[in-house]
């Protein structure tokens, strides 16, 4: 039966996440935007709480643990599982503050990668580890098949050499999931991911970036020089087996893209709600029944934004729902990321125009949200990469045909 409301069993949990976002993240939002690179110590307590929620079986704060695909289970019933509860939770937390959400201990994108592709043994071993994600390099961003960081097998270890940039939580996390190639001549098939702990000799956090937005989240450059990592820290199969190996690494994205889409949805909702209140103070309210052209231009503009938001929100829920029900969701995950990324950025920027100086100045958080939203249309695959993926799927094209 078609029903697109928040599942009944998640309502209390979503309410709880909203309370955390409102009472914990929002009040600290401006402080850590201004104090870039200061560690938000409030998050330690919050993370403990989120761990508790995770243990209780509900989706976790940043969704890191919630992206594991359920085992095929054929009772025929539609499931609302951890993927869905994770995007709902991430939406609420990002409504509070997406930078702080990204700084949440033990909830990094690396944790999502581990949850997605680790073996059960690795899952136990890496339990409780805060893991960042290290893919991008100075000379390689969207074309992640082209990474230059190498991993050379040497007995029981892999020796990693290379430089990674834009590692979210790279300064604060316990470990990073590093993408490296076993053999550059074998192309994407040879790319593997490794869990590398911060105390591993040869691994250095070189610097932290100063950014447009999500300033409370640290973004690090990490150098690997003769960094020896236990072979058992390789995620997935060590074999170089054609497309399958790389597909496994890329599968992480099917699970994390809906989470980033949820972040954009949460940030955009924050802007929309604040703007609606400001417009109401100015005497403008949206009438859902009257034709749009008979309403003030601000109301019409708002309605368009809210419509785009609703589409982004539901696309995100759809992608997560499909994951929970074991349906392949690459296409829908990319659609959600594309729509939420661009709508989130567009909405937060247009809200500033509507709010005037109140939107532009630091008196309000509207300007911050419009800076934060930009990265959500970039990381975990840019808008253009999402469009490429969607286009290839719809048109049945390979990456060699449609470049």
């Amino acid at each position, binding site marked *: *039966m*078609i029903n*697109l409301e928040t*599942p009944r069993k998640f309502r209390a949990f979503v309410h709880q996440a909203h309370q955390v976002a409102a009472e914990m993240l929002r009040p600290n939002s401006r402080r850590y935007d201004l104090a870039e690179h200061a560690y938000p110590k409030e998050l330690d307590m919050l993370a403990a709480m989120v761990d508790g929620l995770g243990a209780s079986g509900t989706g976790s704060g940043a969704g890191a643990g919630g992206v594991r695909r359920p085992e095929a289970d054929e009772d025929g019933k539609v499931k609302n599982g951890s993927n869905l509860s994770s995007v709902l939770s991430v939406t609420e937390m990002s409504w509070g503050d997406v930078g702080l959400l990204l700084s949440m201990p033990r909830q990094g994108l690396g944790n999502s990668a581990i949850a997605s592709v680790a073996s059960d043994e690795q899952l136990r071993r890496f339990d409780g580890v805060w893991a960042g994600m290290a893919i991008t390099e100075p000379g390689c961003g969207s074309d992640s098949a082209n990474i230059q960081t190498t991993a050379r097998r040497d007995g029981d270890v892999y020796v990693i050499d290379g430089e990674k940039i834009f590692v979210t939580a790279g300064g604060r996390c316990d470990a990073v999931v590093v993408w490296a190639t076993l053999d550059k001549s074998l192309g994407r098939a040879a790319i593997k991911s490794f869990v590398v702990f911060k105390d591993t000799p040869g691994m250095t956090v070189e610097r932290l970036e100063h950014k447009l937005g999500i300033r409370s989240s640290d973004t690090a450059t990490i150098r690997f020089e003769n960094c020896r990592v236990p072979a058992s820290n390789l995620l997935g199969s060590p074999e170089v087996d054609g497309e399958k190996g790389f597909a496994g690494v890329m599968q992480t994205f099917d699970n994390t893209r809906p989470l980033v889409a949820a972040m954009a949805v949460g940030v955009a909702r924050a802007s929309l709600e604040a703007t609606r209140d400001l417009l109401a103070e100015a005497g403008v309210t949206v009438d*859902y029944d009257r034709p749009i052209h008979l309403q003030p231009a601000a109301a019409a503009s708002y309605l368009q934004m*809210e419509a785009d938001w*609703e589409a982004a929100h539901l696309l995100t829920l759809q992608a997560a729902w499909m994951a929970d029900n074991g349906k392949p969701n690459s296409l829908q995950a990319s659609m959600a990321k594309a729509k939420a990324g661009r709508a989130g950025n567009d909405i937060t920027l247009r809200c500033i125009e509507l709010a005037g100086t109140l939107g532009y100045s630091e008196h309000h958080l509207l300007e911050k949200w419009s800076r934060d939203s930009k990265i959500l249309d970039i990381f975990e695959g840019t808008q253009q990469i999402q*469009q490429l993926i969607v286009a290839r799927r719809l048109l049945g094209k390979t990456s060699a045909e449609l*470049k």
Partner: protein
Amino acid sequence: MSGQVGTRSRRDAIGVGVALLNRVARSRAIDRFGLRKRTERVVFEATKTGFRTAGALTRSFTAASKLGKPARLPATRSTGRFDLTPTEDQQLMVGVVSEFAAEVLRPASAAADTACTTDARVLAQSAELGLSLIEVPEELGGIVTERSAMTGVLVAEAMAHGDLGQAVACLAPSAVSTAISLWGDETQQATYLPAFTGSSVPAAALAILEPRPLFDPFDLRTRATPHGGGYLLNGVKSLVPRGAAAELFVIAARSADGPALFLVESGHPGVTIEAEPSMGLRAASLARVLLADVPAVQLGTLADYADCVRLSRLGWCALSLGTAKAVLDYVTPYVNSRVAFGEPISHRQSVAFMVANIGIELEGMRLVTYRAGSRAEQGLPFAREVALARRLCTEYGMKIGTDGVQLLGGHGFVKEHPVERWYRDLRAIGVMEGGVLV
């Protein structure tokens, strides 16, 4: 025509499924080859825009076996789970309707567009599918036991994948039967619904639009003035599907209390029909309906009227989904096979990204429309969701329509391909009010 309600025994839960299966069985018998032949156009020639006619009422509606009180469909109970899977009944219904759309509507679409009418046999076959029964309670001869706005959405979407203009022509009577089911009193239900559940479904139309810029369905110029026990209507309604053939109208007019719906039989001499061919939806035989002191009875309340406007807009959103999907399905193989500069044009991002964005926005339109439909049938407030769906379907529906032509270049501009028709049809979304109802 009348009297069928009394003879129909009450269906149990299994009966509803069987009733649907019966429809499936009939659809297999569709004569798909006879359809392209032009039938004589009884009502008007498309080109004769000045053509005027009297209303087309040929039957008399009389109340038969009235219930003690009006039958009302209860809201659908939610499972409480987020779910995008249609029910088995819905899948069955959509399967049948999709087949009808692909094998009957699509092949007939160009001719129907040119002729400005939908072939009588197409209309008869669509009636056989039971389209006007989807929202009629089983005790009144319909096939449902609870609200089914979502089914209406899925059916409209599937129909419009075949052809939007013919879909509107086929669905127009069910807008009236649905309105009477949802808001009619026991006398109105007993008088009019038997015709819609019988073997010869009458042409009928829900008329809300009026011909003026910035039209607002909550600020109507058509007036309903009290007269005797009922009202007299005066005014002009615009873009009324199959107006010339309609025997019964549900007309939006302004009474002293505000805008409301009124039932009008088309046989009164004060009813004049004027052909109103438009840029698209030509197969729906759009017409103006001129009303001069036409007797009418009120249908439902002022609050019901607001729901009618919303459910009608929802219907147009659903229709846009089908046609926009038709565009996507058509341009995909085209851009893959069309070669320029030595390779398929789909190998260029400027082309491929247009296709990707059609896919992305269409999926968003679809989900927002579904949410509105599912809220409506669950008895939840749905004004917001309909407004958002209408915004998306108007904006991106038209974008998809124009990109559909663009992707075919000059070939898209000529009638060899259907994209120019979809372009014209999709412009209707956002303009239309009334005509369809889910």
